[in-house]
C-alpha cells in the first residue's frame, strides 16, 4: 500500500466520514469539520508534494484495474485544484463557524460537497465522475436553498440545469462506452478514433459540462444561484464548483478529445470564452447588488480559462496552459475571498445594495482589506497570482501570434477593470454603521482575508507553480 493510495483515500474518505458524523451527532459538527479541514489541507499538500517528487500518480481503486475497475489519477492540474478546494473548503467552513448561524444541516452538506469535489479531481473514470457530479449538484442545491426566500427559485434553476447537464453528459458517456467498451479516460484516449459516435459523444459531454461550468450562452442559472446563496456557499460554488466543470472540460479535451482539436473546435471554445468575458462583464456593470456583481464576474472570468483550448495545440501551449490554470486557481482564491468579504459586509449593513452600502471600514476593516486585495488579484495587478496567470496566457497567445485571443484577453481585462472600479467607487464612500444588532464576530472576516492574501501570494510562488504545471506533470501530456 503506497503513500499515494493512502493520501487519495484520505481525501475521499475523510470528508464523507465527517459528513456522517456531522449528520448523526450535530453537536460535534463544527469540531469534526475543523478536524476534517485540517486533515484535508495536509493531505492535499502531501499529495502535491508527492506529485512534484514522483510525477503523475495512478492508482486502481479496490485493486481492480481499468477497464473493469475505477482508476484514480493525480497530476499537476488536479493537485493544484485539490489544494484550491482544501483552501476554499477550510476558509468557507471557518467563516461559517465564526458566523455561528443555527443551521445544523449545513455541515454534513458542506462535507459532502467537499468530498464530491475531491472525488472529481481524483477520478479518471467517466461514470464515477457522473456520480460525483450528482453528489456535487445535490449538495450544492441544498446549500443554496438554505438561504431561504429568493434562494429557493435559484436553487431550483440550479438543480434543473445541473440535472440536465449531467444527463446529457451521461448520454455522451454511454456512446463512448458503446464505442470503446471502457470508461477510463486514459483508455479511451488511447483508443479514440474520429468517427461519428465519438464526435457526438464529445459534443454531448462538452455540452453537459459547459452547462455546469455556466459558460456563456448556458450561464443563465449561475448568477442568481451564486448571488443568493449563503456567503460561504457562494464562495465554494464560484471558486471551485465551476472550476471543477472547467477542469473536466480541459481534462477531456486535452486527452481523449484532443483528436478533434483543430477542426475549428478550439476556435469555437475561444469565441465562447471571449463572449463570456464580454457578456459577463457587461452584466456585471449593470448589477445593483454587490453579490450579483461578483457572481457575474465569475461568468466573465471563466472566459479566460476557455482561451486555453484554442491555444493548446501551438508553440505557446505550455505558457497558455500554465497561465490558464493559474488564472483559475487565483480566481478561485480571489473570488472566494470576495464572496466571504461581501458576505460579512452585507451582514453588518443588512443588505448589499451597491448604491447604499457604506464605504471602506463599514462593518470592520478586515473585509474591506480582503476586498481590495482580492480585486487586485482578479484584475491582475502585479505581483498577484492573477497577474502571473494573465501574463503567461498573454505570452502564450503572443507566441502563437493569435491576435484575436490577445485582443480577447485585453478586452476581458478591460471589462474586469470596469466592473471592479464600481467596487472602488463604493470603497471611497464614508463608512456607515449598519442597523445591525449583535455585531458578528470580527473573526468572521479572517478566512476571507487569508484567502485574499493567498491569491496575492500566489504570484510569489511562481517557481513552484511552474514546476507543478510543467508539461511533464500533465497526465496524457500537452497536445
Amino acid at each position: 500500500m503506497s503513500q499515494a493510495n493512502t493520501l487519495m483515500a484520505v481525501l475521499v474518505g475523510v470528508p464523507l466520514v465527517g459528513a456522517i458524523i456531522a449528520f448523526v451527532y450535530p453537536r460535534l459538527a463544527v469540531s469534526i469539520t475543523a478536524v476534517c479541514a485540517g486533515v484535508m489541507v495536509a493531505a492535499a499538500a502531501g499529495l502535491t508534494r508527492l506529485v512534484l517528487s514522483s510525477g503523475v500518480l495512478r492508482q486502481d481503486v479496490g485493486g481492480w484495474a481499468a477497464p473493469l475497475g475505477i482508476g484514480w489519477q493525480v497530476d499537476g492540474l488536479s493537485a493544484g485544484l485539490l489544494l484550491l478546494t482544501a483552501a476554499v473548503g477550510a476558509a468557507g467552513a471557518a467563516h461559517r463557524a465564526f458566523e455561528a448561524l443555527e443551521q445544523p444541516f449545513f455541515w454534513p452538506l458542506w462535507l459532502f460537497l467537499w468530498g464530491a469535489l475531491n472525488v472529481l479531481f481524483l477520478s479518471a473514470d467517466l461514470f464515477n465522475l457522473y456520480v460525483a457530479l450528482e453528489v456535487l449538484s445535490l449538495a450544492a442545491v441544498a446549500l443554496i436553498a438554505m438561504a431561504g426566500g429568493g434562494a429557493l427559485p435559484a436553487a431550483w434553476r440550479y438543480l434543473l440545469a445541473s440535472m440536465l447537464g449531467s444527463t446529457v453528459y451521461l448520454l455522451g458517456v454511454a456512446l463512448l462506452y458503446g464505442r470503446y467498451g471502457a470508461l477510463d479516460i486514459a483508455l479511451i484516449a488511447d483508443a479514440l478514433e474520429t468517427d461519428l459516435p465519438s464526435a457526438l459523444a464529445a459534443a454531448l459531454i462538452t455540452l453537459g459540462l459547459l452547462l455546469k461550468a455556466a459558460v456563456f450562452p448556458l450561464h443563465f442559472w449561475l448568477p442568481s444561484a451564486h448571488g443568493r446563496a449563503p456567503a460561504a456557499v457562494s464562495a465554494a460554488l464560484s471558486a471551485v464548483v465551476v472550476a471543477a466543470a472547467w477542469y473536466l472540460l480541459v481534462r477531456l479535451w486535452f486527452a481523449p478529445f484532443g483528436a478533434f482539436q483543430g477542426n475549428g473546435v478550439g476556435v469555437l471554445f475561444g469565441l465562447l470564452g471571449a463572449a463570456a468575458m464580454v457578456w459577463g462583464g457587461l452584466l456585471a456593470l449593470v448589477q445593483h447588488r454587490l453579490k450579483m456583481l461578483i457572481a457575474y464576474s465569475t461568468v466573465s472570468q471563466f472566459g479566460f480559462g476557455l482561451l486555453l483550448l484554442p491555444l493548446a495545440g501551438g508553440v505557446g501551449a505550455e505558457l497558455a496552459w500554465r497561465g490558464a490554470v493559474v488564472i483559475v486557481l487565483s480566481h478561485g482564491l480571489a473570488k472566494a475571498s470576495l464572496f466571504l468579504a461581501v458576505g460579512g459586509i452585507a451582514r453588518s449593513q443588512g443588505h448589499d445594495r451597491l448604491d447604499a452600502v457604506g464605504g471602506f471600514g463599514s462593518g470592520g476593516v478586515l473585509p474591506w482589506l480582503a476586498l481590495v486585495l482580492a480585486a487586485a488579484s482578479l484584475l491582475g495587478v502585479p505581483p498577484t497570482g492573477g497577474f502571473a496567470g494573465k501574463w503567461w496566457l498573454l505570452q502564450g497567445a503572443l507566441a502563437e501570434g493569435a491576435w484575436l485571443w490577445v485582443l480577447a484577453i485585453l478586452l476581458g481585462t478591460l471589462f474586469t477593470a470596469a466592473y471592479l472600479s464600481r467596487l472602488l467607487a463604493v470603497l471611497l464612500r464614508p463608512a456607515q454603521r449598519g442597523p445591525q444588532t449583535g455585531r458578528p464576530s470580527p473573526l468572521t472576516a479572517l478566512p476571507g482575508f487569508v484567502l485574499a492574501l493567498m491569491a496575492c501570494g500566489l504570484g510569489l510562488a511562481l517557481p513552484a507553480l511552474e514546476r507543478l504545471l510543467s508539461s511533464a506533470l500533465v497526465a496524457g501530456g500537452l497536445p
Partner: protein
Amino acid sequence: MGWLVLVFDGLLAAALIWLAWQATHTPGLFRSVISFIIFGLLMALAWVRLDAPDIALAEAAIGAGATGALLLSALGRLVATHEEGAPWQERRDLYFWIPAGGALLGLLTLAAWMLPSPGLGEQVQDALPESGVQNPVTAVLLNFRALDTLLEIGVLLLAAIAIWSLGRMPLPSAPAVRSPALPALGRLLFPMFVLVSAYLLWRGSHAPGGAFPAGAVMGAGGILTILAGAQPWLTGSVHGPWRMLLSLGFAAMLALALGVMALGQPFFAYPPGLAGLIVLALELAAGLSIAMSLVALYLAGQPPDHWEGEARGE
C-alpha cells in the same frame, strides 16, 4: 416467432413514446403523473425484453413503486397545481424544435447504430470467481465498481439530508375517509414486504436481486404502513436511531473501504477469500439504509422529534 417479437417491441415502444408524451406534454397534471407511473411499469417490461432482469426488478420496485408514491404525494401537497392554458408555451418555437429534434434523433440513432459495443462481458466473466458472488451485476456493483455504489448510497443519504435541511415535514393531508380496510391492509402486507425483501437480498448473490430492489421493496413497505396510519417509530430527533440507520449503509461501506487499508490492502480492496462475506454484509447494511432513505424521501421534510399530535395534523 420473429414477427411476434417485432410486434411486441413495436407496441411497447409505441406505448412508451405515447406515455412519455402524455407525461410531459398534455394538460392535466394528474394525468401526467399517472402516465409517468404507467411509463415506469412498461419500462420494466422493456428491461425484461433487453435481458436485464436486475434492472427490471429495480424499476418495478423503485420506478413503479417508490417514484409513483413520491410523485403522487407531492402532487397532493402542491398548493397551486392549477394549470392555466396550454401545458406548454406557444408553438412558435416549433420551427426550431422539429428540425432540431429530428436532427438530434437522426444523429443519435445513426451513432448508436454504428457502435460496435465491445463491452466488458468477458472481463467480468473472468473476474467473477474472485468477486465472491455469482451474479455478475452484483459483482460489478459491490466489488469491481464499489466506489460508484458507495457514492450512490451517499447520494441517497445526501438527498435525505438535503430534504431535511429544506425544513420540517409538511403536515400530511390525512385521508378524507378513514377506511377500516387501510390499517388491516398495512398489517397484512407488512410481513410480506419484510419477507420479500429478505428473499431478494438473499437472492442477490447468485441471481437478480440484491440490496437495491430489496431496500426499495422494504422502503415501499414502510411508506405503505405510514399511509395505512401506523405511527412511525422513527423520529427526526438527534437522539433517535433514524439518523444512524440512514447512514448505516454508507458508513459500513466507508468503514470497510478505509478499514481494509489497516490490513495493508489498497482502498476498497477486499481481502482475498472474504469477498463473499463482505458483499453480503454490505448488502444487508445498504438495503436497510436504502429502505430508510426512501421513507425519508417520502416524508418530504425533517420529521418531528415526537410524533404524538404534531404529525397527525388534526
